[in-house]
């Protein structure tokens, strides 16, 4: 399904969370689609099943997936306003990026132009 970069400094657990998020956000994994079981994924990627369990728990806490006892984990239908934690994180990241942009001399107009461009895309 995807590859992990074992050479990367990033913990495997974080890589997993990010990769799965990306798949969900880009609709590669559809709403209510079943994710591979912990066992399957552990064997496929040869990584510790506990690490995968942990990544799934994290994704559940962040509202990206839900789990049914005995059935597995599924992609959560998207409800954009619900994800407070996620929003908070993105807000922080945006702040940092904006600070950097302003610091590097980007004008407010330029930032607004980027924003409009992205709105047009979505």
């Amino acid at each position, binding site marked *: 399904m995807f590859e992990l970069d074992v050479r990367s400094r990033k913990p495997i657990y974080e890589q997993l969370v990010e990769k799965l998020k990306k798949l969900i956000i880009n609709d590669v994994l559809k709403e209510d689609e079943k994710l591979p079981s912990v*066992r399957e994924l*552990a064997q496929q990627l*040869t*990584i510790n*099943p*506990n690490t995968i369990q*942990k990544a799934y728990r994290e994704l559940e806490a962040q509202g990206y997936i839900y789990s049914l006892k005995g059935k597995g984990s599924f992609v959560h239908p998207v409800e954009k306003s619900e994800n407070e934690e996620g929003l908070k994180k993105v807000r922080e990241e945006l702040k*940092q990026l904006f*600070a950097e942009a302003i610091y590097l001399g980007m004008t407010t107009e330029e930032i607004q132009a980027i924003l409009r461009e992205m709105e047009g895309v979505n």
Partner: protein
Amino acid sequence: MIEVKQVDKSFDKEKILKNVSFSVQKGSIYGLLGSNGAGKTTLMRTIAGILVQDKGEVQALGEPVFENEQVKQKLVFLPDAPYFLPQYTVKQMANYYRGMYERWNEERYQKLKGVFQLDENRKIGRFSKGMQRQVAFWLAMSVMPDVLILDEPFDGLDAVMRQKIRQLLIQDVAEREMTILISSHNLREVEDICDHIGILHRGEVLLERDLDDLRSDIHKLQVAFRDEDDAILQSELDIVHHEKRGSVLMLIVKGNEQKVSETVQRYHPVVYDHLPLTLEEIFIYEMGGAGYAIENILV
């Protein structure tokens, strides 16, 4: 699953283990790290019930291990130099195991024959070091242990075999919740498969933690400031180590990532890079803190 409480162990007058306590949860893969001569092998042999501790408690599967046949049926220890009966072939050795272990799984043994592709009728003594280790894994995995203790398990194995064996181990952890205690100096490898690690130094446990928690608590930062005001930075953060390379300052900082980044941002760095630490780096800095530092060695 494995419970070690305040264990002391001496050989003659030399104290090898000092008040060692740690535990391994069921279905966990625990990496035991340590400096040379820290007592890792002694600790493993004590847990396997080969040695008896002078003081304290050692339990596996809820019972003391020493002289306990029932526990030993379900616990396999693979020493750093595998031992086989002299002049035995793989087949004969398997026969011996079959008679010893109640849970011997013939089907698994036959299946693994295809994985390792070793000639069953050859004397083990004539195999190479790496092949002997494969035989050790072959036999150990056929016993279907609940607890597997591995001392430097990947030593001498080629890259393909390493991957195959890792797959086998992970399969048993995922499907049967086997518990693994693994000691290794190859931190790269430990990092990939363990969920918990413990560091032993001079017979004492220096640190014991969930690997992801450990890694999210320590950071490597590269920062540079326009003015020479990096002195201010050093007063506020929990800095374990710092090094100046030209105008760039390299810091090893402990603490919550968010807080660290907020603090640094307040000083408006021109350069700010945040890198997660590898296990190898964590090991080196923790050891440095315990007085086992790398100095510039010139002989």
